[in-house]
């Protein structure tokens, strides 16, 4: 089995920054990632795309270039197109490339698998033509595709980022249907002191909104009773706003109400997790270096708690430095000296976060969907089915698998896990931290028997 000092899973901002920091400290690093090129989702394919569409995508995307370039280091071995399907506490990682499984054993593991979109179950959200705003961004970055007749639905800065990129490409969205209210903004104002320290984000936000207004992009706020309309595909989005029912015809509806940590690997490893009330998600319990409850396993980036791309890269560096220290490549004094400026930058980077979290809270209707709404997309289990099971005495998310198969389809609960936990909390009156989450098991992604069998061959 191949051995290494450090294995990093995920080549987004946290993984790329950690790899180069570790390599600078003289640590042999393996950087494993699903995509053909480094960048993760936020900097998807940045080295190829920057010259093609960099100007339209903006500086925030181009900021990924130096990170991606720094991965070209003789001490970093980038393993591309690799699907990690098992991680063990002894440092063994099993992954598959082109249907062939491989294993690597690392003295330290850094999980940098980032965020996934917060599930946004609404009536009609399974129709073809409904995608996430993140998907809209990926289509635009990697493939230069923009939906011609799109409506953006939900809340948060990412809606404005995508809408303004679409506007720059002369294909603006037909409308942005926003779920946050003026009350949310007022409540957020008490965090404005922190936000002013992170003033660049506020300035960026107001510039985006001004550009959208100038471009004639129609915005509706405080939307309620949102439904995606259509039989075989999306035909429109209907909602209440200002006491009136509106319907906007469209071919594509892009949903977003925040992102949450991707906890598949940390859950499978049975690391300790906490419920983060402010961000309404579970996140792994970590120290300031990203060390988890299991020795030798670190987590950095949005997978550790949502902070955005810049914060993710800084956290990746901190974890890499601590790993270098543990492996005897940095003294305690060197570690402290190198970490201080990173921590200072991290603190100002995170200053606007409480304001943003409060100004754009998750959409309540999607946290507690109507009975007829599908929650588990894979097995087509509705909110009503789950409520009924809870009322019948089903003990929680794990027993629900046996009751209804929710969370047992190919996505393995990624798309419904948080909603299922929230529905149980609502029905039983227990705090969600106590309800807990699906137990996640290997293989972390569906694999063929051939891929499993190919392991033995690899061992020879």
């Amino acid at each position, binding site marked *: 089995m191949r051995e290494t000092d450090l294995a990093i899973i995920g080549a987004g901002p946290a993984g790329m920054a950690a790899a180069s920091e570790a390599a600078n400290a003289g640590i042999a690093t393996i950087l494993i990632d699903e995509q053909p090129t480094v960048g993760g989702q936020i900097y998807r394919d940045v080295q190829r795309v920057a010259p093609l569409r960099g100007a339209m995508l903006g500086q925030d995307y181009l900021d990924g270039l130096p990170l991606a370039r720094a991965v070209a280091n003789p001490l970093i071995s980038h393993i591309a197109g690799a699907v990690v399907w098992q991680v063990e506490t002894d440092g063994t990682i099993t992954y598959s490339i082109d249907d062939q499984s491989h294993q690597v054993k690392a003295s330290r593991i850094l999980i940098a698998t980032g965020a*996934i979109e917060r599930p946004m179950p609404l009536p009609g959200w399974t129709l073809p033509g409904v995608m996430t705003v993140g998907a809209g961004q990926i*289509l635009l970055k990697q*493939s230069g*595709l923009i939906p011609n*007749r799109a409506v953006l639905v939900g809340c948060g800065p990412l809606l404005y980022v995508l809408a303004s990129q679409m506007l720059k490409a002369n294909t603006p969205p037909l409308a942005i249907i926003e779920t946050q209210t003026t009350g949310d903004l007022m409540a957020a104002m008490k965090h404005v002191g922190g936000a002013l320290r992170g003033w660049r984000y506020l300035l960026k936000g107001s510039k985006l909104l001004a550009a959208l207004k100038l471009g004639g992009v129609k915005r509706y706020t405080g939307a309620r009773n949102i439904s995606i309309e259509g039989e075989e*595909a999306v035909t429109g989005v209907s909602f209440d706003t200002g006491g009136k029912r509106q319907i906007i015809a469209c071919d594509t509806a892009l949903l977003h109400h925040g992102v949450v940590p991707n906890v598949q690997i940390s859950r499978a490893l049975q690391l300790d997790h906490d419920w983060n009330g402010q961000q309404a998600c579970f996140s792994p319990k970590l120290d300031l270096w990203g060390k988890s409850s299991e020795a030798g396993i670190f987590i950095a980036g949005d997978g550790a708690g949502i902070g955005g791309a810049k914060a993710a890269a800084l956290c990746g560096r901190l974890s890499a430095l601590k790993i270098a220290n543990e492996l005897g490549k940095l003294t305690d004094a060197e570690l402290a000296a190198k970490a201080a400026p990173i921590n200072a930058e991290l603190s100002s980077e995170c200053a606007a976060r409480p304001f943003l979290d409060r100004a754009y809270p998750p959409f309540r209707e999607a946290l507690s969907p109507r009975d007829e709404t599908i929650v588990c997309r894979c097995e087509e289990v509705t909110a009503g089915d789950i409520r009924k099971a809870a009322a019948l005495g089903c003990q929680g998310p794990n027993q629900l698998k046996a009751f209804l198969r929710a969370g047992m389809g190919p996505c393995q609960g990624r798309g419904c896990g948080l909603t299922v936990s929230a529905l149980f909390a609502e029905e039983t009156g227990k705090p969600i931290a106590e309800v807990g989450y699906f137990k996640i098991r290997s293989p972390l992604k569906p694999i063929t028997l051939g891929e499993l069998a190919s392991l033995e061959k690899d061992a020879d």
Partner: protein
Amino acid sequence: MKTASGFNTIGEAAEQAALVPVQFDSKDYMLPEGANLAASLLAAGVSVFRNTPASGAPRGPFCMMGVCYDCLVEIDGVTRQACQTQVSANMQVSKPAIPAAALREDDHA
């Protein structure tokens, strides 16, 4: 080949990828070699990638990052995520076959 699709492609000329033949559900398409398969099929006008085993409902790409599995297709006999696959010449792609036993009558309500 340009089929009516819901998408506008920008900077296409600059990409300079060779177009290669790919079949989806017995229809012929010319798609850019090496490009993301899900994106390329969307751009070519395909919106339904599969029907669910539970109710037969149509589905298409949703997350584009390998999380949701709604873009599952069968490629040369193996079920794969279209959004995690690169286009290569002569790929035979189809909607995944649904075992008859998987269709649950009570889910059609």
